[in-house]
């Protein structure tokens, strides 16, 4: 590998903290919540050891944490925060505000079931229910990817003036310890230019942000957001490539795993991708042409790339670790919508797998492939025991 000289055993959350430290944020408002807390604690540890030169503040809620993020970002600082589940939901109002303000905040969310009833298991409904808040949303599969993505996130977000949220699954990623290659500080510094926005809360400029606005201007602001959103996928690709040149690990909006000549492609996000890789390998060994299409960038949804990726594939199975009551799996809905009116679209089956954090074993996935590869799909997502 290029440039690697430091491999450590890190949990997913600590990998995030290392990535954040290397990205040199200036302000980090943080509020604890299981299972995000190790991110916070590692950052405060770095800070107390003088290894992280940032203003850390610990307000009384995630709402205030995100409020401080927005304000600090508008003042021109590089900003990071992390949360999970309830915390993310409490931030909801400010997520809209942040994207409306085009504040390039980077936030890490640890996917966890929201109450009620109370639980602490991996489930992506917390972040997926923030789908329409105007943030770039990315999902990470592993500690290494979480570290790599959080660094890339600052570059993407700041370049496009859009806030960016990365999620990884509770425990499966957040607390799973794996060897993680740490880039060197100089590498990251060369990759990530300092944040210097032209417009900011600055006494030498005197311009104000957020004053009441008329209909047409509000409308225009969302069109500008749309224009920026349209550039995200390419930016993710470029940034992922540049990161690859630096570290040997390239990224894009989607990742194909053994999809060449596949009759069935499994589409999913987050930690489930690891299990799917195992199932794909097992099925390929058995002679089934099966592959994985991993959705790394969920918002904006890379619609055209998805269509290109799935054109001519006979069957796609979508695995959702989330449930939108009344409509089923969210990725399932999104994919059906993305493939709208496509002549050579695959038959799309949706499965509600792992909702509430239940384990989805490789064998289960293999069974689903066998069972549904040639079946007629239903419109509704199918609950999987």
């Amino acid at each position: 590998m290029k440039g690697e000289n430091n491999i450590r055993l890190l949990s997913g959350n600590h990998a995030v903290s290392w990535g954040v430290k290397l990205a040199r944020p200036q302000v980090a408002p943080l509020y604890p919540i299981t299972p995000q807390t190790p991110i916070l604690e590692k950052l405060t540890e770095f800070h107390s050891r003088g290894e992280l030169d940032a203003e850390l503040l610990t307000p009384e809620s995630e709402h205030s944490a995100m409020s401080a993020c927005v304000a600090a970002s508008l003042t021109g600082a590089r900003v990071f925060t992390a949360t999970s589940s309830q915390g993310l939901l409490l931030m909801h109002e400010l997520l809209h505000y942040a994207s409306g303000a085009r504040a390039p905040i980077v936030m890490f969310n640890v996917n966890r079931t929201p109450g009620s009833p109370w639980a602490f298991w991996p489930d992506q409904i917390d972040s997926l229910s923030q789908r329409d808040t105007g943030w770039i949303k990315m999902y990470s599969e592993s500690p290494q990817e979480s570290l790599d993505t959080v660094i890339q996130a600052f570059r993407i977000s700041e370049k496009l003036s859009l806030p960016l949220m990365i999620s990884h699954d509770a425990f499966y990623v957040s607390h799973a310890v794996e060897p993680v290659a740490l880039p060197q500080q100089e590498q990251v510094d060369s990759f990530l230019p300092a944040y210097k926005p032209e417009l900011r809360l600055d006494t030498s400029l005197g311009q104000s942000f957020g004053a009441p606005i008329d209909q047409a201007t509000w409308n225009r602001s969302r069109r500008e957001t749309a224009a920026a959103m349209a550039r995200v996928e390419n930016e993710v690709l470029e940034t992922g490539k540049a990161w690859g040149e630096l570290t040997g690990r390239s990224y894009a909006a989607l990742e194909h795993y053994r999809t060449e000549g596949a009759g069935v492609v499994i589409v999913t996000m987050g930690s489930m991708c690891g299990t799917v890789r195992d199932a794909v390998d097992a099925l390929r060994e058995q002679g089934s042409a099966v592959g994985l299409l991993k959705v790394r960038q969920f918002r904006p949804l890379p619609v055209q790339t998805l269509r290109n990726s799935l054109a001519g594939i006979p069957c796609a199975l979508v695995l959702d670790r989330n449930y939108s009551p009344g409509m089923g799996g969210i990725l399932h809905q999104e994919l059906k919508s993305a493939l709208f009116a496509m002549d050579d679209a695959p038959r799309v089956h949706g499965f509600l797998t792992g909702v509430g954090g239940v384990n989805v074993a490789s064998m289960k996935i293999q069974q689903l492939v066998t069972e549904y590869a040639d079946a007629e799909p239903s419109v509704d997502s199918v609950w999987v025991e």
Partner: protein
Amino acid sequence: MDMIDYPDGEQFSPGHVACAGCAEALSLRVILNTIGPDAIGVVPPSCTAVICGGYPLSSVSIPVQHTTLENAAASASGIKRSLNAMGKPDTTVVCLAGDGGTYDIGLQALSSAAERNEDILYVCFDNEGYMNTGGQKSSSTPLNAITGSTPAGKLSRKKNLVEILAAHRIPYIATCSPAHLSDMSAKIKKAESIRGTKVIIVIIPCLPGWGVADDAAVKTARMAVDSGVFPLYEVEDGVDYTMTINTRNQAVNAYLKQQKRFRHLSDADISDIQADVDWGWEYLLDRAGK
């Protein structure tokens, strides 16, 4: 006659859309010019938000972030920390919030900022209700006052925010009135000289909300002070109380009677309010050691 003394300046521009005769606009003029150009403002939804805007125009020379209703103190913290990170720790960060955004929905964030003793100046324009939404009650609305959501008069007392803040032991809390502009300016100046969380509560008689004449905001504020309904005082470090004016020269009756929101009060109601005000006054004098 004592001359009014506050810095003349251009930090607040004419052409703003405050109601004619608005004491909040007047107070903004005093406060912004006292603070001067090296400051960043934080304005949650409120009359001040309307007065500062609207896009693309601004009536204030300093940059302002228009935040959400409940997060002025948190936003100010974010700005302050950002300025610290950029090596500009001396720039004042000032919240200009209403009582809804302070006593009610913003109290949590304010309490948190106060607990962290963030280096911010928080000004609450207390017009005793949600006046920008047409006049509904807040927890700052006084007992018996008629508002859009208390058509028969509010059944509970006004929240004592100063005491809540004093319990945080922040370095400086003060009350101000638009009838005492020199004092207002002096208190802002004093607050600016102190590091940490400073809170200044300004009583703002709302012309339509309280039902007073266009030219009577200052007079009404003066009566609020003179009757002891809204005493002017300072609390330092949460424990050192100083009365700015330690005499009262009128009963609450005249103050109440000239406002539409109190016009329904019976004599018994008025004596109850008088008793409450008397109690509060004695309490303050006692705290101030007078």
